[in-house]
């Protein structure tokens, strides 16, 4: 492909060790204002101390139920939200303190694919101008060259280049998501946050889009943060998976390990909520059913955040916050009893 933006390939030796993105104790609180004088009376702790690394070329799945702070975390990592506390290091550089201008220079290297393909494309712009916008903004190419690049991108995501002058509403959901992906890869980024890119699509289209993302990852050497609540899809695409609950991570492990040997009771519960495509097994398999709703992130429970719904909670769980620890190489968990066999 014609790459206007060549990646800095001259990384020092041993950069295999250095993660592309390192998130350390990331916090994002939204203030709650009340009264005539708009005094702050509390805060919604959407993301409350999250740490993980994303390595070059890998896909990190981020799963969790609605309201667990997945999307906020994704946006905060791209600095689309101001970070309350903690750091996000992109390619070794802390970006949390950077000015808008400085972040803008990094934008070509980190992009985002959005959840709702109907809302993420400006209805008044043609596909060509939507995909061309990043090229225009970063002066990556102009005139005829830009047109060629737009056609090339459309072909790359499996759309007909002759449709470039159409408007978003003339496309189906899956096609629109492809347009969104074309926009995200236009500047040859290294890192893409995929914020539930398939949640709004028909099941029949979901796998097509996921396969497209995988193909692009292979050909363009992309790293993904793949946010989703669809466990089976994450299993398909991710290399490692992080499970989020109420603003914090509860478990992080390589994908097979997380699915075969989940350590945290919440992961187990999530896991057992995925139906098995075999009626016989499905009828008899044991299920962990969580009761109640996810507590309010403005007033999280003390101790382990999951203790109010945990099927195996002990007294200790409502007092001590469990430590985020690596119980096996590459397998992180925050549960007091994760290594207690047989609970």
């Amino acid at each position: 492909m014609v790459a206007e933006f060549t990646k800095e390939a001259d990384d020092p030796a041993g950069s295999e060790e250095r993660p592309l993105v390192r998130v350390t104790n990331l916090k994002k609180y939204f203030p709650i204002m009340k009264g005539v004088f708009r005094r702050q009376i509390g805060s919604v702790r959407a993301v409350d101390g999250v740490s993980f690394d994303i390595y070059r070329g890998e896909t990190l799945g981020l799963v969790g139920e609605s309201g667990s702070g997945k999307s906020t975390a994704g946006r905060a990592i791209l600095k689309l939200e101001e970070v309350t506390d903690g750091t996000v290091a992109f390619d070794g550089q802390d970006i949390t303190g950077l000015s808008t201008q400085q972040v803008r220079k990094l934008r070509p290297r980190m992009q985002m694919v959005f959840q709702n393909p109907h809302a993420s494309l400006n209805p008044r712009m043609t596909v060509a101008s939507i995909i061309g916008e990043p090229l225009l903004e970063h002066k990556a190419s102009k005139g005829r060259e830009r047109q060629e690049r737009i056609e090339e991108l459309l072909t790359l995501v499996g759309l007909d280049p002759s449709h470039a002058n159409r408007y978003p509403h003339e496309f189906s959901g899956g096609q629109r998501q492809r347009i969104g992906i074309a926009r995200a890869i236009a500047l040859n980024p290294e890192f893409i946050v995929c914020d539930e890119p398939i949640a709004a699509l028909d099941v029949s289209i979901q796998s097509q889009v996921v396969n497209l993302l995988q193909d692009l990852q292979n050909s363009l050497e992309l790293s993904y943060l793949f946010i989703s609540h669809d466990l089976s899809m994450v299993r398909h695409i991710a290399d490692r998976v992080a499970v989020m609950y109420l603003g914090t991570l509860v478990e992080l492990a390589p994908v097979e390990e997380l699915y075969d040997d989940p350590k945290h009771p919440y992961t187990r519960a999530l896991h057992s909520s995925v139906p098995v495509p075999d009626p016989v097994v499905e009828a008899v398999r044991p299920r962990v059913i969580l009761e109640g709703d996810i507590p309010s992130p403005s007033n999280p429970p003390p101790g382990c955040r999951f203790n109010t719904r945990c099927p195996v909670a002990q007294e200790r769980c409502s007092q001590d916050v469990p430590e985020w620890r690596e119980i096996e190489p590459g397998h992180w968990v925050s549960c007091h009893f994760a290594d207690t066999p047989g609970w």
Partner: protein
Amino acid sequence: MTMTNQPGEVEPVSGGALAEFGGRHRSLRADVWRQFRRHKGALIGLFLLTVIMLGSYIGPFFYPIDPFEIDTAIANQTPSWGHPMGTDNLGRDVMARVLIGGRISLSVGFAAMFVGLFLGTFIGLLAGYFRRLDGPLMRFTDLFLALPILPLLLVTVVLFREPLRERLGESMGIFVLVVVIIGATSWMQTARVVRADVLAIKEEEFVLAARSIGTRPRRILSRHILPNVLSPVIVAASLGTATAIITESALSFLGLGFPATFPTWGILLSNAKDYLSINPARVIWPGVMISVTVMSVNFIGDGLRDALDPKLRSKG
């Protein structure tokens, strides 16, 4: 009017049609025009407005009777072949006065509308998009809404009429004054509506997408937000023209605008009302002109709004 873009010329985009950006723009204009033509009311409006504008700006050169010629012998005549709209109380030809009156009324109407629209849209966009500006700008808007307009007008006219007249000449000075006064006192509604729409649009995902690309706020406003708040702006524009024409007549009536000897539709109307019982036709002509202009502008605005919306365009 460019009628050259026939549907056949708008070639379906194929292979090399993307080659140059110019191609896109031409076809966009053609698309908009094609959809606009589908709107019957808009076409009729465009036709009527064109006729009125031609009559006002070019008509007086062809119409043989001088609008300022006084002949009390033929005062207060009803319409006849010699005077198609009759004559006024001083025997001046009403048709000639209506034709030339349109110049000022239309110019003031459109100019004041643009001033008000520009101010309102600009302030609305800024207030809606930048949270820090929202409070101050909207309080500023409230301030203008609460200002008693008449005393303000009096002061403005007293202060600025003479300096402007000296600098720009008799009619131009008053024209600028009237346009600025009307524009500066009619932008508040637009600002409020635009702000409200911007508040909703800026939360859309495509605005976030633009930010994630690194688009600068100025471009986000012009490329993503402004086109999506166009509908209320166009409605405000068509209503604003009407209000401006009528406000101009009110100003002139109060002696704050153009001098009473100067024919504008508003002045013709207020002069004629004293002779309503003797010569009712005199009121009807300028009144009809104002109404038809306002209606045409409304229809054109309506058609334009539909034509600029890609969704409606492809359905039509």
